[in-house]
């Protein structure tokens, strides 16, 4: 049997399309974990990144923090949180997912703001813009493509890692892979893998679209 056969078996199985173990339900679960984790990470990373990038302070602390955060093994952390916190809903899964996503968001936001051409910033200050105005009206719009890139990078990693959450008995597309491996139902494993890859690609698409909508044409084509 090759991959296509597995896929055919998986997707043509009517049982995979409804109920708690159906694809729509698993998709919602997966999106929910990812979106919540990303939102929490963004709520932490964006303000800090914007502030440190704007003031130019804390660059070294930030890069040390980022190195530490990247070094944390997400899978190990997931297991560790489960044994420490028990099966407390999604909390054990959220901690590693958020930890995973904060570093790229924080560091990219900081660097994106820092890398804004200093000339317009100087001009804005010289024209009498207040410090928050400079940040939100000049630096942020120009840094937006890079910041969205950081968010996207974080989102992809979160979607990818949320798959592993099934290992600690949570839902999402990972369920098909973990359960399939346990029961040697290889069509489920491959089906789940393709679904989660598809979701990751859809994430790229969403961010591309958001970029088209919120980034000024002057910035988009001007680089």
């Amino acid at each position: 049997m090759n991959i296509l056969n597995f896929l055919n078996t998986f997707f043509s199985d009517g049982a995979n399309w409804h109920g708690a173990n159906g694809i729509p339900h698993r998709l919602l679960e997966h999106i929910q974990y990812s979106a919540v984790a990303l939102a929490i990470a963004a709520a932490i990373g964006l303000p800090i990144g914007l502030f440190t990038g704007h003031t130019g302070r804390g660059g070294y602390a930030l890069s040390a923090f980022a190195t530490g955060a990247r070094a944390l093994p997400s899978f190990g952390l997931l297991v560790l949180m489960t044994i420490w916190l028990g099966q407390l809903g999604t909390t054990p899964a959220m901690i590693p997912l958020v930890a995973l996503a904060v570093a790229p968001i924080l560091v990219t936001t900081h660097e994106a703001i820092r890398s804004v051409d200093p000339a317009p910033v100087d001009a804005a200050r010289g024209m009498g813009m207040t410090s928050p105005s400079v940040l939100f009206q000049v630096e942020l719009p120009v840094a937006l493509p890079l910041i969205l890139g950081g968010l996207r990078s974080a989102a992809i990693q979160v979607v990818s890692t949320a798959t592993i959450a099934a290992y600690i008995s949570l839902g999402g597309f990972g369920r098909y892979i973990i359960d399939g491996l346990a029961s040697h139902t290889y069509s489920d494993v491959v089906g789940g893998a393709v679904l989660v890859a598809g979701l990751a690609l859809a994430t790229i698409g969403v961010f591309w679209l958001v970029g088209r909508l919120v980034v000024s044409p002057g910035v988009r084509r001007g680089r």
Partner: protein
Amino acid sequence: MIRIESVTKRYADGTVAVDDLTLDIPDGSITVLVGPSGCGKTTTLRMINRMIEPSGGRILLDGQDLAQQPVTALRRSMGYVIQNAGLFQHRTIVDNIATVPRMLGWDRGRARERARELMDRVGLDATLAKRYPYQLSGGQQQRVGVARALAADPPVLLMDEPFSAVDPIVRKGLQAELLRIQSELGKTIVFVTHDIDEAIKLGNMIAVMRTGGHLAQYAPPDELLSAPADAFVEDFLGTDRGIRRLSFFTSAGLDVTATPIVTADADAAQIAERTLPELPYLLVTDADGKPLGWAKAEDLAPRTDAGDGASTEDGASTADLLPHGRPFVLGQDSLRDALDCAVLSPTGWAVAVDGTGKVVGVTSQETIATAIRGAHAGRATKPAEPDADAPDAADTSAAGPAQAPATDGPAPDAPDGDADAPVKAAR
């Protein structure tokens, strides 16, 4: 008036960018801060809108200490133009220009209308309004930068090397444009540059600064060129300051003669009558009096004698003419332009025209030299007074240098005695 009073800027690491600088910047004119890298000129400029806070001394605007004023309001009341324009790449041209009016609470429509008005003023085509900065050339971007600074009609304009990143031809255009705008608006402009030629071209007053933040000399350009305060200023001015100074002497009183000028159809008698003893050439003009070129008297004469086949000869003779070179506009161009025309002319004589391009006369290098000596003699007694640090000093010098020698300086044919030889001979 902006009064910089014993201002010092010392950084935490001990670097002194500006050292006990005192400077009065007069209203309604262009004051240029010029000097080599690290002389503190930009720091000085940035202290005026408090982008940098002085470590000592104070800066007064119309008698008010700047340090007492809210910083954002202060900056909004001063236009600010920087080297690479610093446009907001995410905003259209019209919205870039409307930035300060919007901050001052104007509604969008009025701010944009004002922005379009300014685009026109700085010579930007209205079709560019909806473009983004990346779609504009460097020169156009800099025009937008100037328009943006003027948007809220601030009385003061701070310009930090605004034209140094564009190529020389564009820069020349922008400089001319700035002078034109200034003649219409009469702002108080503080202009920073490292280019002494730009300083001389634009400045009503020039502050030459030297490394370490010291003021080397503060004077109108003409005085700077004629009397540099010390070796540093002299060196900074370069070698040909004598020639450059001639830009400040008008050609208005320059003696020109209309004698050696003939139309293409002049007859032998006219040619003989109009040929000057010291000049074997005649300037040929067309029927409207526009110059065509120089011709030797003997080359013109036989042709017109054999007058029959006029049609073919006319074309041939025009082709034989020596080029007359670029003429200067009498009374409008400076003695430097007149001298340049004479030096470049194949005959050594410069062609003077009026505003419409019609020839009014020709003049020799000797005549121009006499005029220069006369102008120097007149200037030697004059510039002492505008030099004083009275606030209106720059006003006098702004309009002054070009007219002064023409109106009350000794004219080239003044009865000084030294003027006689070449000028009289030309008659």
